[in-house]
């Protein structure tokens, strides 16, 4: 009887010890890796981030990066503003727009630059049937953007202004990227706004007979222009600059590997973006600038373009909306 009691007591003690150990182990583990919640919208430029996570580069840098897919740039900002994500990835327009409306977010990395003549991430493509062969022909035509306050809207406004037209001269239709190819082919829209991989698909479609009437976020890209941005809230950035740097280094490491090996890029595109191998072949994964920190001058160019285009009502200073990590 007494032995049984003893055994039971001993059993109880060991179970308690095990539970305690488990509880104590939990925060210990969390302390090892810093949790970073990363809200993003799907983009081929993020292959480096996906790879950095998969290869354990983030973990090696002491980060536990949680990838949160979100639909659209404004939703990325919302995720940050609600505290549901620490950092996010979007085109530069939504965060700058948000900043202008008082949302405390800042750009701190960029994964891609555009510049004349070749390195571009946005294309304005007309179908052959539309009869549009230059920006001047857009007047009265149906043009597509993927959403308001996006890179596409900025691109349209800037290019049209450079061609002496106004945004209101065309009929703007909001159409998600995946739907634009069919719309072009069927004549529902005359000119689309495409990013990869849709641009490759549209170009390869003989029924459309695609004609690029403009390329790039801005009409004038003699100087490099940032085409995307990694952003964080002011509060998070002020306390986590080291984390931000560690994140950047891990991404750069993964990106360098991708840039060095084309096969790796295609493999990653199939794995992470679910592209078909054929579509993955069309992917252009080159970078203009190896650096990923944002320079005030680059940001200011976008800011000025946003004001000129009328998307921003009041001028902003680059120093107020971005952090140069000086990596």
């Amino acid at each position: 009887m007494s032995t049984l009691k003893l055994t039971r007591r001993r059993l109880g003690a060991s179970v308690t010890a095990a539970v305690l150990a488990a509880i104590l182990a939990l925060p210990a583990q969390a302390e090892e890796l810093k949790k970073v919640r990363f809200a993003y919208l799907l983009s081929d430029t993020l292959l480096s981030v996906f790879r950095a996570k998969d290869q354990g580069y983030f973990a090696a840098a002491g980060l536990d990066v949680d990838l949160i897919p979100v639909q659209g740039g404004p939703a990325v900002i919302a995720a940050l503003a609600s505290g549901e994500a620490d950092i996010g990835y979007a085109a530069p327009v939504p965060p700058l727009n948000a900043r202008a409306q008082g949302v405390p977010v800042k750009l701190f990395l960029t994964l891609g630059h555009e510049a004349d003549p070749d390195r571009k991430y946005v294309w304005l493509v007309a179908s052959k049937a539309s009869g549009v062969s230059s920006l001047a022909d857009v007047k009265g035509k149906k043009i597509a953007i993927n959403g308001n306050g996006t890179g596409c809207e900025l691109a349209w406004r800037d290019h049209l202004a450079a061609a002496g037209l106004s945004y209101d001269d065309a009929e703007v239709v909001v159409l998600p990227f995946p739907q634009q190819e069919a719309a072009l082919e069927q004549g529902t829209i005359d000119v689309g706004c495409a990013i990869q991989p849709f641009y490759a698909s549209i170009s390869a479609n003989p029924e459309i007979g695609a004609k690029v009437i403009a390329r790039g976020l801005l009409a004038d890209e003699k100087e490099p222009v940032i085409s995307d941005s990694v952003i964080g809230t002011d509060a998070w950035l002020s306390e986590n600059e080291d984390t931000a740097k560690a994140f950047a280094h891990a991404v750069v490491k993964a990106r360098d590997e991708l840039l060095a090996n084309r096969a790796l890029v295609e493999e990653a595109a199939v794995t992470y973006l679910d592209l078909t191998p054929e579509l993955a072949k069309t992917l252009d994964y080159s970078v203009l600038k190896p650096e990923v920190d944002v320079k005030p001058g680059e940001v200011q160019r976008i800011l000025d373009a946003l004001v000129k285009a009328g998307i921003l009502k009041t001028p902003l200073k680059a120093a107020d909306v971005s952090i140069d990590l000086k990596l």
Partner: protein
Amino acid sequence: MTALLRPVLALGLLAALWQAVVWAAVVPERYFPPIATVVQAGMSMIARGQMQQALFDTGSRAILGAIAVNLIGIGLGLAATGAPSLRRILDTVAAILQPVPPAAVVPMAVFALGLGWKLYAFVVVLVTIWPPYLATVSALAATNPVLLSVGRMAGFGPVAMLWHIRLPAAMPEILAGVRYATTIALIAVIVSEMITGRDGIGFLLFQKAFAIRIPEVFALMFAVGLLGSAMGLAVSAVYRGFAGWHLAQRGRAA
């Protein structure tokens, strides 16, 4: 047996209609692929395990959500029937919220609720709670007066009257509300997943569209239809359990 046969038949008919549209060649096949291609795409997603996983994720969310929201809706309906002032408040809230599309609220809800389960729950509750609530309230108010007299003659108090007479009599109408709510719970879950999901059918729909895998997008849409039909069958089973008398009575009348 016929319960299973009919959806299969419907699916076949849908496939035939689909194929007829393909043959009519109104739209290039690339964007509206033949049914065989869609089936193939679905099979390949099954082979990769994607389809099952997505169906499980979305299905479990939708079923859990539907059960919870229907219970809450019926509970509120019961409470509102007992307390007229609560009913006035709830009816006002329903009238204000019902015309607002979830898609319009979600972007703002994200600011307030973030991207996690809270957002899902909010969207599902917002769009799904009113059918069971309104059905419960209206059905309880419309009990056949003769039955109420019978209950009073049997000496029922308000609670016994509710339990023995009003609730059973209201069951067919309440369950019709439940059926509707269950369908839109699935829709709400998919819409939430499309906006901010990392898994499930909604997310996959979005991802597949981004990867320009059009046949797989359509295969997913067919899968949604099947999942919805399965949930409909489940509700029918509940219906038979709680209001089988109504079905049998109707079957005899028809």
